[in-house]
């Protein structure tokens, strides 16, 4: 294992050539300080036609756009993106192809050799003398480094980039996997990690949807002793997690585990004994990062142990309930969280399609109306998650159950819930907005959505 104290010295030692494929993780979210400098240095060395594998793209990852425009980045494979880079890709496409994977699918693709990476650049909050890596300590400790595990195992060369050397930690990634260590002043600004979506909502519509969700879960008696649960970090999801915690407390129940991206709200449940274990692939805030370090029941997990469909021991295989969002849903319950109706990339699967497929009950929560835009389309613009894996849609104006789930339809009989068919719910919305005209924007393809098993599921198109 070689140590370097300057990026240029490291790059001198690396085999760099045109068509290079490189990978990064996104754990520092908008506070990442590794992706931009590394990419710019590679541009300076004029490495052309690179394939970028990055687990997600955030608004601050601006160098990606620069290298796309200068022809240095040709292809991108990622699980989620928003901000200026997403805008630019939607507008102009890539020189090569965009591939959108899921978190579980990315892990599988590394293991199977579908994602073939020459050099993995791993932002590491702390590195030991043996080259061991952890995300849980250091100046910029972001907690779990779960999305970088497979990069570290399967890339040809692995570089740990750190601003902290310590020896007193349990490794999340073993030093034997690491080829090079680069010391930098700072790997980013962890304070900017939790910016954005991570607040329990006070928005009355969001709270109404959260309450309806709890009523639904109660009506079908889904919240039992040892239940397992996952929800995202959006405002409504967080409100549901909080109400879920309160329910457990009121009924003296304990959940078996919460999984996925972990926040302070999840940690609160662990500390109060409302849940036995947290399985954490990514910390969404500092409270989660801190808890991962101190609480023995707050477990670090790699993306493959989280959601890889070929891993029989994946955590979400045992998941009872998952709460997910949608930017569009259609009459067959297909969900789009990847693009808006005009083909602009606004997100991606992340763990959406993984958890929907594996969890026993997958619930989509979303407002039915956003101003004059109706959530339910005849056909979604992009299929992120297939309808057969989606069980229930809960909105502020009603609940629709996937007709495939006859058991759920049976279970809610006699309840007070405002349940109707998804067609009726769409009609209810149209009654307020009028019937929208639909227009086909699908002119030039720029990439594909790949499902977690590695099959092409849908095509991505340029924005008109």
């Amino acid at each position, binding site marked *: 294992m070689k140590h370097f104290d300057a990026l240029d010295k490291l790059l001198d030692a690396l085999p760099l050539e045109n068509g290079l494929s490189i990978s990064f993780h996104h754990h520092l979210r908008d506070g990442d300080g590794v992706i931009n400098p590394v990419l710019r240095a590679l541009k300076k060395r004029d490495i052309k036609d690179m394939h970028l594998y990055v687990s997600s793209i955030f608004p601050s990852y601006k160098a990606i756009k620069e290298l796309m425009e200068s022809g240095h980045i040709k292809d991108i494979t990622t699980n989620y993106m928003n901000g200026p880079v997403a805008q630019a890709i939607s507008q102009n496409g890539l020189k090569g192809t965009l591939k959108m994977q899921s978190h579980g699918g990315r892990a599988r693709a590394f293991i199977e050799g579908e994602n073939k990476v020459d050099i993995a650049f791993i932002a590491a909050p702390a590195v030991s003398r043996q080259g061991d890596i952890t995300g849980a300590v250091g100046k910029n400790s972001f907690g779990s480094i779960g999305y970088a595990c497979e990069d570290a195992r399967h890339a040809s060369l692995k570089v740990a980039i750190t601003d902290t050397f310590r020896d007193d930690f349990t490794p999340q990634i073993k030093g034997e996997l690491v080829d090079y260590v680069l010391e930098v002043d700072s790997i980013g600004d962890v304070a900017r990690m939790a910016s954005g979506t991570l607040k329990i909502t*006070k928005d*009355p*519509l969001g*709270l*109404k949807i959260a*309450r309806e969700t709890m009523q639904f879960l109660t009506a079908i008696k889904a919240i039992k002793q040892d239940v397992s649960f996952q929800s995202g970090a959006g405002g409504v999801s967080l409100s549901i997690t909080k109400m879920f915690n309160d329910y457990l407390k009121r009924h003296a129940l304990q959940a078996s585990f919460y999984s996925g991206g972990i926040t302070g709200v999840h940690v609160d449940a662990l500390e109060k004994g409302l849940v036995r274990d947290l399985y954490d692939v990514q910390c969404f805030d500092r409270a989660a990062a801190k808890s991962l370090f101190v609480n023995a029941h707050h477990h670090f997990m790699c993306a493959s142990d989280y959601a890889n469909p070929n891993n029989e021991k994946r955590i979400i295989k045992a998941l009872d309930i998952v709460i997910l969002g949608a930017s569009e849903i259609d009459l067959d319950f297909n969900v789009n969280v990847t693009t808006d109706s005009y083909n602009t990339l606004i997100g991606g699967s992340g763990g959406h399609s993984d958890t929907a497929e594996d969890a026993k009950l997958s619930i989509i929560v979303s407002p039915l*109306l956003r*101003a004059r835009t109706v959530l339910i389309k005849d056909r979604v613009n992009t299929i992120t998650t297939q309808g057969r894996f989606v069980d229930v849609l809960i909105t*502020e*104006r009603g609940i629709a159950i996937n007709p495939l789930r006859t058991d759920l339809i049976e279970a809610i009989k*006699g309840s*007070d819930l405002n349940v109707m068919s998804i067609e009726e719910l769409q009609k209810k919305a149209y*009654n*307020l907005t009028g019937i929208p005209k639909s227009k086909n924007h699908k002119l030039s393809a720029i990439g594909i959505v790949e499902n977690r098993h590695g099959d092409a599921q849908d095509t991505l198109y340029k924005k008109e």
Partner: protein
Amino acid sequence: MARSYLFIPANEPRMLQNAYVFDADAIILDLEDSVAIEEKHEARHLAKSFLKDYPKDTARTYVRINTQADWLERDLACLQDLDFEGIVLPKMTLKMWETYEKTALKQGFHKPVIGIVETPEAFFELDAIASIEQIEGLILGAEDLVSGMEAKRTLEGHEILYARSMVRMACAKHHILAIDTPWTNLEEAHLQKDITHAITLGFEGKCAIHPNQVPVINEAFAPSKATIDFALRVMKKYEETSSMRFSLDGQMVDKPVLQRAEDTLKKARFYGLLKEDRS
């Protein structure tokens, strides 16, 4: 009958669009305090268009109008021939009623009115106000009343206990709706405490100034599940024995208990809390 009366600022389409989403038993489109003076004109048009074209829901819909004579006249003029439940008239006194009635008569405007009693004057003519035929209920407006008294609004509510009791009694005497004051602090536990005071005095509903207050109010003012179950069993046994006096769970049931059970079930049915009525 309504547990919750949710105020919706009439000049905010974003709020109007979701007015019926929050399960309020009644909504009050507000042309008065939540609309800036320079927006009154546009708010009237929006309220009118909303009442005319926006699909109706099961919630009762009221409009709170302005009291300044020329505004009151324009408010009523724009509300002509529209389908809604009634007017909410703020700063209610006998003198205010005179102004209102004159304008309403001139325009041929006939709708039930809920008055907000919120000035010290009103409390010295409460009996007369409550006896007016078009008045279907009274709202206690504690915020304005307390500032009129130069008192301080508190969580304990001693400062308004007298006024609250008077409103309740006047409404009971004239068999009209007794609606409790809004609680302006958004802390849920505080709202709950304020509601308890109102329920103890016999109020049937309460105003909400934020949608997040509605579920708290609805739950508090609805008969509890235990109360409903007991009432159902009382009525069942009554039908079986067809006697006005019998014992249930070792407790004597007589006419007042029967009457209460009947009232409970009537309320429960109205608020959709009895499942057999849902199908």
